[in-house]
């Protein structure tokens, strides 16, 4: 492994940060297993005993709701012989976890409940009162507006400090509900990319790629959209979701990115999500009634396409979806893509957002498929000896920096990647 300052320069990075197993292991230890990692949403666990398994770095955990209503995050491991206690991705475990190997049982807060043949442990160090007999808990668990995070280290910034200005992701999503809350749709899309996780994070705020990568879909959708308009019909908003991908370089260059400390960032909005139709008018009226006109207009007027929480989360707050990365290997990354329902809105408003979720992020998407192809080929290219460096030179020196936040003066500036790697370097020290 090259020294850090040789791996990451201000305008370029060495290819090995995408391909090297030792660097990947260090990322898992220094970033994922220390930072606050998103586990899930409170509404995922409705009843006592509801659980969902979560991978944090290399660590398998369980997020579970206890009888006291609290959500805890525990290692998915029986302290006896190490067997995982939950074998499914989600479910209800009743009032206890039961190990399938030797029937050790645990309360929902992880404390050991029963040890079979416990008299056999008399006089050993593994008696019922030893805390080692209980399931280990994540060092810290906290939530922000219903979104649950865990950190596997006791030290470090609080959740709110970690999120910084990027907490707008969750405010923006919840504020768009007349009730100020969202509820998770309990089925997620799961997508595997055969590439390093960084490809995803860089791509999210890369405003130059859509008109290149997604032109086939943008053009095909625009053609059908125009055909409908010519026939005097109003095409549904979700055609526009697809056709805007084929916007010109100049148009994309006018969309600004905001790059926060710790690698977080925002791609500002460009889709114009407030059409003049009865469904929208009814929704806006409900928002005015709930929040008052001034606040409601502030909420609905925010220019956000999506917010990145580095290094693993992309929150598309105006359309209520969230993508979370679970890296598996230097060249393999799993993403889970969740959709949320704004509380107190009509079915039409819900459906409108759901279309985006399905069209852009389902495993049959006509959009993300071309990204995945790019990243696979990108991984192969970087694994080769055809070159040593990855270039982030576009608009280098042309961005505006204020109080640690970098505003790109060109939407297509590679400020995004430069900012992410500055954060990466800090984590990897």
């Amino acid at each position, binding site marked *: 492994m090259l020294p850090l300052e040789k791996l990451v320069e201000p305008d370029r990075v060495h290819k090995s940060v995408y391909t090297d197993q030792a660097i990947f292991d260090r990322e898992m230890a220094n970033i994922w297993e220390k930072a606050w990692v998103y586990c899930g949403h409170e509404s995922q666990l409705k009843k006592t005993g509801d659980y969902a398994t979560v991978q944090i770095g290399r660590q398998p955990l369980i997020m579970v709701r206890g009888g006291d209503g609290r959500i805890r995050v525990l290692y998915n491991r029986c302290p006896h012989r190490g067997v995982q206690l939950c074998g499914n991705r989600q479910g209800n475990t009743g009032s206890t976890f039961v190990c399938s190997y030797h029937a050790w049982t645990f309360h929902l807060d992880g404390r050991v409940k029963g040890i079979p043949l416990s008299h056999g442990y008399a006089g050993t160090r593994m008696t019922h009162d030893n805390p080692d007999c209980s399931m280990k808990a994540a060092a810290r668990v906290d939530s922000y507006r219903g979104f649950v995070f865990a950190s596997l280290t006791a030290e470090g910034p609080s959740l709110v400090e970690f999120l910084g200005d990027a907490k707008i992701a969750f405010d923006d999503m919840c504020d768009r509900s007349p009730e100020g809350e969202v509820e998770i*749709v309990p089925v997620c899309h799961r997508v595997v990319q055969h590439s390093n996780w960084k490809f995803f994070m860089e791509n999210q705020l890369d405003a130059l790629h859509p008109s290149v990568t997604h032109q086939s879909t943008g053009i095909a959708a625009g053609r059908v959209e125009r055909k409908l308009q010519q026939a005097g019909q109003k095409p549904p908003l979700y055609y526009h979701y697809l056709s805007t991908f084929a916007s010109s370089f100049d148009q994309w260059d006018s969309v600004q990115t905001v790059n926060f400390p710790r690698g977080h960032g925002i791609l500002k909005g460009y889709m114009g999500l407030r059409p003049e139709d009865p469904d929208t008018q009814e929704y806006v009226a409900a928002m005015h009634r709930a929040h008052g006109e001034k606040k409601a207009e502030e909420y609905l007027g925010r220019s956000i396409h999506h917010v990145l929480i580095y290094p693993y989360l992309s929150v598309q707050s105006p359309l209520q979806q969230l993508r979370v990365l679970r890296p598996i290997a230097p060249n393999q990354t799993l993403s889970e893509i969740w959709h949320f329902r704004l509380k107190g809105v009509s079915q039409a408003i819900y459906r409108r957002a759901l279309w985006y979720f399905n069209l852009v992020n389902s495993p049959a998407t006509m959009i993300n498929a071309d990204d995945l192809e790019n990243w696979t080929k990108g991984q192969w290219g970087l694994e080769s000896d055809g070159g040593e460096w990855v270039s982030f030179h576009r608009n280098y020196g042309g961005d505006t920096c204020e109080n640690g936040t970098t505003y790109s003066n060109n939407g297509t500036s590679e400020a995004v990647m430069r900012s992410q790697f500055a954060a990466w370097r800090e984590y990897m020290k």
Partner: protein
Amino acid sequence: MSDLEQRLLEDVVIFENKEANRTGAQSIAPDHSPRQTHKSKPLPARSVVVAADLQQRVEQFLFHQSELLDEKQWAAYIELFAADGVYWMPVTSEQTEWLDSPSIFAEDRRMMEIRMGRVTHPNAWSQAPQWGTSHLVGNVVIESVTDTEISVRSRFQMMELRRDTTRHFAGTYRHKLQRVGHDFKIEVQRVDLLNGQAPFDYVLQIWV
């Protein structure tokens, strides 16, 4: 006789265990009721008695549809759908509403037209590597018949080649067919992919 041989003579036989309820996992997790999903599911419908020629025509229709996919005859494939026809692949088999739940595919004819336009565009990058499919449709069961409509359930197996890799998909088709003379139009085709919740880099870029 050695110690070991002596000890080996001390045999234990576990007979029917009358104390079963008080031992092992049963004492700790005494709930033995079957899981909800297993007791609540209705049995699959049996074939209704229909004329053999109707069964044959329905089967031939399904075979033709899958052949059009494998031959990449997408315009003709879309034509099999009624003007307001829908192709739907939900994420889980529990879902019932095509507009209201996460879907892998949820497409009317216009969206299918966009998909065809996208896949045939020269810069559909993900489709640049060589690819093809081979479907096998069977277990065709006509669940109900009226003068105007037929509900039919079938199973499919599909092998896909992409670049240097083959993948295997399988599942259930549920067609609601409109009767148009001796032919049919698809009102709804529901596709439940057996491996729908498995993580893919993506499922096909064209209908399954």
